[in-house]
């Protein structure tokens, strides 16, 4: 592995550690705002946490792709100048973003709360990444495996949605609140779709590699599911804004498209036996464990998402911690698990000492267990808030939140398990990355 990719991998893992630590402190600031407002207020901790989490995901996904592409498209020159330029500008901008948060300089929209000028270096670095990726891609001929389609789609759509994220800087888009809101959430929804394409592509790639079965990434069925995922990326974002009185065809389109996700659920149930058989053969591999954990979380989150995508149910869940359960359930349970599988594979964790693998296995289980409680507690918090505000029609915010707090305390305590387990895993992986200079 080249030096610059190693640096990138280590930076991504540092972002993961930062994300969990900031998340934990943010949960305390949520519970005791009076205290935290004096020195480290929630409005600073939330962007620290969410940006670290999102940059962990995007960085780790692109780090994997930059590493794997050398095998997928053999013609790349190994010392790719564009990749290096991308990595340095990208990391530099992330540091600048954190400095701004530290100085309480905000200005962006939700999840991208840094001053909007910093969008420019992010855009430039993404274009550099596209050069690094597309030049070798366009040079290789012949049919590509589906994971290459997915990586390509993810990288390309991230660019489109990133530009869309920033359209609000053009005054016309702010002439109407509903227009601005709609486009913001169209872009946010599709950005998540874009990184999911990169990450699910990586998961497919890893499965092909560890099972040695190239057919997994070929054929009509896999392509059909890829297209279904892409359709959802393009058209399902309206479920974020069901309750806003924007044009009704937006609601109709996203309701219909979101319901196609049942097909994913049915496919998972159908494939369950096969997954079990495969699991018996591969379960000793840590890489595989992380992938299987992600499948469990896909299943759990699909159930939740399908429910939330029905407007009549969304009416109760919207604006509650059920949304947070959905977003953290997916970003930790699905994305982070696949990305850790990817890093386990890159670092060759399965070939390391038994002692080291034991540590990882233990923390793997600690993470699953605490995440499950964490997730359920958030859902409980959301159900209580939804019940009190929508069913009981309470209007006083203080009164609504009173019984929600115990659920959020449970969430915060379970969060400690997530922090310890993901923290230890990232530290172990960072040490391995520093050691594996020659690999």
């Amino acid at each position: 592995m080249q030096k610059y990719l190693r640096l990138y991998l280590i930076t991504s893992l540092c972002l993961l550690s930062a994300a969990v630590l900031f998340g934990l402190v943010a949960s305390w600031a949520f519970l005791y705002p009076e205290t935290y407002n004096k020195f480290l207020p929630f409005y600073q901790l939330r962007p620290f946490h969410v940006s670290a989490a999102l940059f962990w995901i995007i960085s780790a996904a692109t780090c994997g792709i930059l590493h794997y592409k050398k095998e997928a498209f053999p013609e790349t020159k190994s010392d790719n100048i564009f990749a290096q330029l991308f990595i340095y500008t990208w990391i530099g901008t992330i540091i600048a973003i954190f400095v701004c948060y530290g100085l309480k300089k905000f200005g962006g929209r939700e999840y991208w709360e840094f001053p909007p000028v910093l969008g420019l270096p992010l855009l430039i670095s993404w274009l550099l990444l596209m050069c690094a990726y597309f030049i070798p891609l366009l040079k290789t001929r012949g049919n590509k495996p589906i994971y290459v389609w997915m990586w390509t789609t993810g990288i390309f759509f991230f660019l489109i949605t990133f530009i869309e994220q920033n359209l609000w800087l053009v005054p016309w888009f702010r002439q109407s609140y509903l227009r601005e809101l709609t486009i913001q959430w169209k872009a946010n929804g599709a950005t998540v779709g874009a990184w999911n394409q990169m990450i699910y592509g990586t998961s497919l790639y890893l499965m092909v590699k560890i099972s040695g079965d190239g057919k997994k990434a070929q054929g009509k069925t896999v392509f059909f599911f890829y297209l279904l995922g892409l359709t959802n990326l393009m058209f399902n974002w309206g479920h974020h804004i069901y309750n806003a009185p924007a044009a009704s065809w937006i609601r109709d389109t996203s309701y219909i498209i979101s319901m196609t996700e049942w097909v994913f659920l049915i496919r998972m149930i159908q494939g369950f036996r096969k997954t079990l058989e495969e699991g018996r053969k591969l379960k000793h591999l840590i890489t595989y464990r992380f992938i299987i954990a992600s499948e469990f979380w896909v299943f759990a989150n699909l159930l939740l998402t399908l429910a939330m995508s029905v407007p009549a149910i969304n009416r109760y869940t919207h604006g509650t911690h059920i949304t947070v359960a959905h977003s953290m359930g997916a970003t930790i349970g699905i994305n982070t698990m696949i990305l850790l599988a990817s890093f386990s594979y890159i670092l060759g964790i399965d070939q390391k000492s038994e002692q080291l693998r034991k540590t990882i296995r233990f923390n793997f289980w600690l993470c699953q267990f605490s995440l499950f409680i964490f997730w359920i507690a958030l859902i409980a918090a959301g159900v209580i808030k939804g019940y009190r505000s929508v069913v009981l029609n309470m209007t006083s915010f203080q009164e609504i939140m009173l019984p929600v707090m115990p659920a959020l305390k449970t969430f915060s305590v379970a969060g400690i398990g997530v922090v310890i387990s993901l923290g230890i895993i990232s530290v172990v992986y960072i040490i391995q990355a520093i050691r594996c200079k020659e690999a």
Partner: protein
Amino acid sequence: MFRLWLVLFVVFLVYSCFVYSNCDKSRLPVTSPDKSVVAGWNTWQQKNCQSCHQIYGLGGYLGPDLTNAASAPGKDDKYLKIFIQYGTGKMPNFQLSDSETNNLVAFLKWVDKSGKSRVPKESVTWTGNYNLDN
């Protein structure tokens, strides 16, 4: 395969343009924001009010949804101003100037006119969808 992809992509582009130009054409009239509203909107983002507050249910969850705070019974400009200018224990005091405070109130009042954040029970149809057009 690539052709199928291209078709989907073209549909996406057309749909996107259609969304940009028509997404807010529901029954409520759209009033353009004046200078004070735009300034308030920028302050809203620069002070990161969205990390604690939601508008249309979107944002952080430490504070209440403010979509319709401006028209809530018993809450007038003065009420909003006091909150914004002095904060509470849970909400920090941002040391905002009078003009920043007024702009924020103008922004919240403008948002309030764009619609209601809560969907009434009557708007849910048998398909599980909403009918918000009347």
